[in-house]
């Protein structure tokens, strides 16, 4: 099992969700985050005073997936979340040691 963490631009959330549901994913966790990377912040001006906003809002997606689906999920996310401009985000794949379904107690791939 693998745990996939992805950061994407917030306005593409629905596109990414639809694409993932389309390949058979039935669960995603979404968190609103802020951060910076190559796309560093920007300047605003309030009542004549300039200030730098260092963080940019992003969406973080977390998906637990069986090994045979990982490549497909990664490519689906990268395709649907790409705009070609700085700040498109990143996808990380982590090893997932265990998964348990709370309702039934199933473990492993049966829990995903």
């Amino acid at each position, binding site marked *: 099992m693998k745990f996939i963490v992805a950061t994407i631009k917030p306005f593409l959330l629905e596109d990414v969700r639809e694409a993932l549901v389309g390949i058979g994913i039935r669960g995603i966790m979404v968190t609103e985050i802020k951060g910076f990377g190559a796309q560093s912040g920007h300047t605003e001006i309030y*009542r004549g*005073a300039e200030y730098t906003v260092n963080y940019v809002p992003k969406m973080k997606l977390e998906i637990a997936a069986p090994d045979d689906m990982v490549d497909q999920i990664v490519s689906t996310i990268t395709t649907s979340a790409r705009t070609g401009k700085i700040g498109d985000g990143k996808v990380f794949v982590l090893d997932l040691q265990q998964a348990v379904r709370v309702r039934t107690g199933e473990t492993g791939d049966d829990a995903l």
Partner: protein
Amino acid sequence: MTNLKSFALAGALVALPSLGLAQDAAGPSSAEFVWIMNTLLFLIGGFLVFFMAAGFAMLEGGLVRSKNVTMQMTKNIALFSLATLAYWAFGYNLMYPLGTWSVEGVLSGVFGPGVLEAVGVDLAGADDGEYASTGSDFFFQLMFCAATASIVSGALAERIKLWPFLIFVVILTGIIYPLQASWKWGGGFLDEAGFLDFAGSTVVHSVGGWAALTGAIILGPRLGKYKDGRVNPMPGSNLALATLGVFILWLGWFGFNGGSQLAMGTVGDIADVSRIFVNTNAAAAAGAIAALLLTQLLYKKPDLTMVLNGALAGLVSITAEPLTPSIGMATLIGAVGGIIVVITIPLLDKLKIDDVVGAIPVHLFAGIWGTIAVVLTNTDANLFTQLYSIVVVGAFTVVASAVVWFILKMTMGIRVSKEAEITGLDVAELGMEAYPEFAKG
């Protein structure tokens, strides 16, 4: 015989109106009519100016950060209520000695609470049968006094302690405001000198502005506002509320300026009130547009908060003389007000004077401009007298305010602790958040 009797009765009834009962049967006398209309103007103008308290509250609430909104609301409703009390208890008679001076033209000789006329008074029994009811006069003037106090609360937001602020308000509304107002509207020495201030660019707005400026300097800026030569903005929490506040203030200003005609019982007077409404509106719009254009020019983007301030500055600018200008002149006068605030807001920041809502540029600087602008359209005004009065009122208000602020600072302290300021006044001082569902804790 019966027919003759009924004819006689009918004849008598027809003749009745000419028997001197004309007033009751046909309506008020012309003197009564004038008195009634004047009183009506004060009542309507009065509750319009009252609603400016809501305007101030929404404007300030929208421009402070979420963690300080409850405190700002508390200050606004408390200051208004205290102004009501202080003006009744002491201020009204201090402002309108009606000729009974203890120091001629300077200090009223009437001390004590205001008293209304008897219930169901008639014109003969009225305090002033040629003016309006005392109740309406008191009500109307009270609202102006409260407005002055509202000006101060915005500038000093986000770091002042509640109770010292409210004590200052009591003294401002019970003594400082009424005393200087007596010099002009109470028939005192400024009035004698020929000073003209129709609805209070100096008497109300600059007084609020001077008190705010003095307070802001003595209180000091918010923590982190000015660091290493940089100005750190602290954006407001709700610009929709701020905008609503400005529209409400704009509406109230029709009562503020219109009511200051002080008469509505003749064709000329009510026509004048209509002129005042039109000019007031024109100046506000001009101030907003001037700010819109200037901020676009200077910052490549319009700044909504400055556009809001611009509209208010336009209103303050026209307040000293909303009657005599043509619509075009009123527009020009308002536009200059808008320009003044866009330029002076960053200027105050350069001087490290932290005015959270722009009250000082709007009410003090535009108030001074408005007072000077009277000479442009009113030939009874002269520049020297206008300037002299600005200086007199300014000096008095600054000194009186400074004394009060210093005493408060020495005795109870006027600034909250660093921890309270950073946590937010709502939680630290009041234990009540404005937006608890969005709380971080």
